[in-house]
Structures are given as C-alpha cells and as structure tokens.
C-alpha cells in the first residue's frame, strides 16, 4: 500500500473490554503520524474531596467503591494509610489474612482480564461469548477459575465485592476454618486448570513491539512484594519510602483526560504486572518462574503487550503462595482480636500493589478523628502517560505494514494489555483516529 494513502482519522470512543470510559485518537497524514492522544472521558466522582468528614474506619469501606475490580486493593491500601495516621499496629494474623485477601483479588482480576478482556483479541473475536461455542472448554475453565478466585475473596472478606469482614486493625468476623480448608483443596485441584491457562497463553501471538521505559513497583526484602514494600525504580535500581510517593508520582493534568498523569525519572513510567515481574523476578515462587520460562517471558522485558503474560505468571505465583498461606492459617488457627482503636490527629500514607500496579493512598485526620485531607494515586493514572508514549512510538512502526483496522485493533490491544481501570483513575478511555 502506498504510504501517501495512509491518511487516517481513527477515533475509537468508549473503548470496549476495559474497565471505564476512554478514547484513542490517532491522526496520520500521508504515512506520517500527526497526533496520538489517549483521552479519558469518565465522569468525575471526587472521592478525595467527599471522604472529608468521615471517621477512620469508614474510609477503607467507602474508598473500596473507587473500583469494583480492585476494591480489595483500595481497601487494603486505605487501611494501611489510615492505620499509619493513627499509629495502629496490627498483628501477624491480620497481616496474613490481608495478604490472603490481596492475593485472592490478584487471581480474580488477572484471570478476568486475561480470559474475558484480552484473549478475545488474540482469537480474533469480539468477546468471550462466541468462544462459548467455538472453545467451550476455554470458557468453562475461565468460569471455574474465576469462581474459585471469587470464593477465595468471599472466604476472607465476607463477599467478593466491597468486602466488609475486614476493618482497621483486623477482622470483624474471622473466616471459617472449614471454609479455609475447603478453599485449600480447591486451589490444589485447580492446578491442572492453571497449567492449561499457561498452555493457552503460550499459543497466543503477542505483538512484538518493544519500548524500554522506567518500571516502578513495590519491592520487599523477603518476598514478592504485593501487600507491602518500598517504591522501587528500574532506572535508579533503588527504593524510596512510601511516604515520599509524591516525589515518585509528580502528578500533573492534561485537558484531554479527566485523569491525572504521572512521571518520575523520565517522561513516563510503567506500573503493573510487567513492572513487578521485571523488578522482582527473583522472588517469584519456582512454579511461577517456570511458567515465565515456558511463556518466553525473560526479564527485563520491554514489550508492553507481554503484560498479559506477566499477569498469568502472577496468577501461578498467587495460587501456590495461597496454598502456602492457607496452610499457615490452618496450622496456627485464628483467634478473635479486639479491633477498637483510639483516634488522634495525624497523616498517614499507605501503598500496596494492586493488580494494575502500585497504588498510593494518603489521609490526614484531625484530633476528633475526622478526615480533613485525602489523596489517592491510582495505577492507571500512573500508566496512562506511558500508554500514550507507547502509542507514539509504535504507530510509526506499525503504520507502514498495517491497515487502518489492524492499527486500530493494535492500539486497543495495547491499551487493554495495560488492563486500565478507568473508573479508578478518574478521577479515564475511548480510541479515536482523526484526519
């Protein structure tokens, strides 16, 4: 095809199979890229302002509503931030239960994303639905694994969405040990399904585009950092404390997005499964490393489309680590703990890895324990700048060999690979090609 004919105006408004509303705008003239824009169009909800006036234990419960898919992550991060502000120490039992709740949501979110949102692109279908007829075994496995992860969350949180069993300091109602034992057996029984998930992932043809960027994640000396750690950059090969997150995120706004953008040591940075696997590969469990090896994921990996592969690697890690932690619960039992706390004035910052990347919450309370200031920096808002940089780098590479439709699909796939969570970040997406 003659490049001079390549004048595209691609405008995909309300991009599908992503959580939230976004728009991709690509404008090319005679084979040259004029404009690439990622616009987040989600309506504002102003969480950071309306949580003001709430008491400490209300905060994690309410900010859970920032996002349905990562409600647990928002709860955990807010819980840690509030506890830090009030000087609350928590028991090893509480930390263990929180890690279980956290990892259950990694499994749920990654499996949903890989099977429901990403795989259809690779199999050339519009959604997971036609797969029910053409690949029934794939869909049934997806549903089995998803149900397992949801039940996992329910055992520890009381329900799968916006759990209420957990609160500041600990658990209002402890998980039932019989249910924990049942869950352990089901996790072990799911190993063949997980192996099959790795096998399917291996058959998918991942677009081969690379752009090296800065990878940011938590890092912990003793474990693959998901629940806790310090903020690590692949650029400096060092960590900064979570309290200094504002120096990491350096948020700024652009008119075409209702989400804030971030940058640290360069124009943009990457958070999420690929950043974590790149930064903390050595701490993955052996089974997860083996899955990475089978899937051809070698670190450092600079291909953003490989984020889906990194998610599968993390699912394997979380499943095996889950069995280990469930054994710990079953071995030691659980005892009821007092969750009463004293209020005082103070500010606290919390950070957890959530499925889409590193999340920061920051709350300040007055002496009556009323929230007077709040800030949340969401993985998708940190990533969105990096997605736009990827698009700007890849469109000129893709343009000579691709039709308008292929290019559109590759832009949408790129965005989906990041697993954006737009409700979260709007404080966000649609694809639009403009002449």
């Amino acid at each position, binding site marked *: 095809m003659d490049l001079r004919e390549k004048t595209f105006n691609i405008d995909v408004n*309300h991009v*599908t*199979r*992503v*959580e*939230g509303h976004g728009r991709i705008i690509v404008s090319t003239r005679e084979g040259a890229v004029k404009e690439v824009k990622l*616009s987040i*169009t*989600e*309506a*504002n*909800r*102003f*969480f*950071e*302002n*309306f949580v003001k*006036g*709430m*008491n400490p234990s*209300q905060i994690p*419960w*309410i900010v859970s*509503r*920032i*996002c*349905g*898919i990562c*409600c647990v992550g928002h709860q955990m991060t807010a819980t840690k931030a509030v506890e830090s502000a009030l000087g609350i120490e928590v028991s090893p039992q509480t930390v263990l239960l929180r890690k279980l709740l956290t990892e259950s949501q990694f499994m749920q979110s990654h499996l*949903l994303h890989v099977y*429901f*949102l990403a795989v259809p692109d690779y199999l050339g279908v*519009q*959604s*997971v*639905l036609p797969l*029910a007829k053409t690949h029934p075994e794939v*869909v*049934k496995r997806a*549903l*089995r694994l*998803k*149900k397992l992860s*949801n039940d996992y969350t329910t055992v520890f949180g*009381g*329900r*799968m*969405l*916006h759990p*209420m*069993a957990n609160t500041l300091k600990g*658990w*209002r*109602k402890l998980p039932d040990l019989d249910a924990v034992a049942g869950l352990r057996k089901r996790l072990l029984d799911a190993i063949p399904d997980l192996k099959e998930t790795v096998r399917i992932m291996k058959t998918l043809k991942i677009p081969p585009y690379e752009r090296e960027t800065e990878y940011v994640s938590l890092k912990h000396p003793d474990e693959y950092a998901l629940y806790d750690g310090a903020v690590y950059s692949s650029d400096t090969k060092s960590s900064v404390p979570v309290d200094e997150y504002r120096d990491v995120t350096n948020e700024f*706004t652009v*008119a*075409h997005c*209702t989400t804030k953008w971030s940058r640290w040591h360069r124009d943009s940075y990457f958070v999420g499964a690929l950043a974590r696997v790149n930064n903390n590969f050595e701490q993955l469990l052996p089974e997860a490393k083996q899955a990475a090896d089978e899937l051809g994921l070698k670190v450092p990996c600079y291909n953003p489309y490989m984020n889906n592969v990194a998610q599968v690697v993390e699912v394997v890690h979380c499943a095996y680590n889950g069995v280990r932690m469930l054994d710990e619960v079953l071995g030691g039992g659980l005892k009821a703990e007092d969750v009463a706390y004293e209020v005082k004035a103070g500010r606290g910052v919390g950070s957890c890895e959530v499925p889409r990347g590193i999340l920061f919450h920051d709350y300040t309370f007055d002496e009556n324990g009323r929230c007077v200031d709040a800030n949340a920096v969401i993985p998708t808002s940190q990533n969105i700048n990096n997605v736009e940089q990827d698009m700007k780098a890849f469109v000129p590479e893709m343009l000579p060999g691709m039709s308008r439709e292929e290019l559109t699909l590759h832009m949408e796939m790129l965005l989906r690979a990041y697993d954006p969570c737009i*409700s979260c970040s709007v*404080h966000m997406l649609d694809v639009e090609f403009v002449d």
Partner: protein
Amino acid sequence: MKPKVAFFDFASCEGCQLAILNCEDILLDILNLVNLVEFREAISEKAPRYDIAFVEGSIHRDEDIERLQNLRSRTTVLVALGACACNGCVQARSNFVAPAVNYEAVYGEDARNRVQVDADFWSLWSHTRVRPLDAVVKVDAYLRGCPVVPAEFLHLVKSMLRGTTPYFPPDAVCVECKKNGNECVLERGETCMGPITWGGCNSICVNNGYVCDGCRGTLPHANIQSHITLMREHNIKDEDIRSRYRLFLGAEPIGRGV
C-alpha cells in the same frame, strides 16, 4: 425471539456489572436465553435497539444526560443496576460541595483554569450534580445495593423472560437481619440504617459483623423521624446520624435534609 439485552455504565465502580459476570454457575445458561448485544466491559459488539437495558452508574454531566436519554429511547425496559443508578451511592456526597470547589480540591486550580480555555474538552469537565437515573428518565425496575445481589438479578431476568413483573418486597433490612439471628446493631450502640432500608441483601453486612449503611436506599414509607429518634435513644450523636444519612443517601431528598 430471544430478548436483546444490553449493559451500560455511567459514573460508577463498574462493580455491579462485575457482580453479574460473577454469576459463573448460571452465566452460560442465561446467555443461552438472551441475546447479549452490548456489554462494554466484556464485549465489543454494538446494537441499535434493546429489549432490556441494564444501566449502572449515576448521572453527572450534560453529555451523560444526553447519552441516557438516547438509550432510554432505544430500549423497551430500563433497569437501574446498583446503588449508583438507583440512588446516587457514595459519590452523591459530593453534592454537598460546589463542583468548582471539588475540581480545585482534586485536580488543582491550574487544571481547572486550563480546562476553561480548551473548549474541545469542556463537556468532559462539566460536572454539575450527582443524580440517580430516575432523576433524568423513567426507570422500569431497580436492582438495589452496593453491589447488587445476584439472586435479585436472577429473579428479575427470570420474571422478564416469563413476561411477569419482578417483585421485590418493600421490607426493611431488619426483617432479614432478625431471621438471621443477629444481635441488633443499635443495641451494640452503633448507627444502623437497617430499619429504613430496602431489604433483599439478606443483611449480609450485619451477618459479617458490620452495620447497615443503607446502600440499598430508603423504603418508600420509611419513618425517618422515628428512626432518628430511635438512634438518639441509643445515645448516638446527631453528628454520627447525619454522617450515616449522607454516606450512601446523599442524592436522596432525605440525605439532604438530615
């Protein structure tokens, strides 16, 4: 012919659509009985007309109003899916603050000013007030709760497939809570919205050691004054009572009045 079913969302956490995807056991059976034509969170297809549209989220901007009116005109039945769509949910708390103050607090003054000079993006940033769907269009059925209850979704789908009207009894959360044998939250000295709140959730929050925050909205004939008196009698401070009424019910007239 199989009914054409579609899902849409406005400002929300999209958790209620996720709650539907989480009906793993019966999801494939339902999909055999309906023709799912739009579900942006999970599929890429689009259709011009629907028999049943499930709409999640609250309405904040002019463009949202136009989109909702447009899809109302293209669907036979419109179902409000979840607390954001039914009663505004937690984000309606932002109605107590002027939008400009909210924009400045969350995005900074520079951002607010910059948006004012770029007309292409005005509509994105035109937040006025958080409204439930029925403040803008007629709603035919409500699936309440934050998040929705899968059993109620199934009841609604089954009723509609049979051509009957789904019935959700207007009983307070207290009715189910008593059946579940929970200790009364008010007796524990904590605020509880159970007495005035639509049941149907099986009092799941109280079962798990928490209280009822009223996410399902107030019952049509709820005696608000008596509820407030009841909480005062249990030595609950007015400040805390007000705070509860403004937690999930900020868009309801009652949430504004307490």
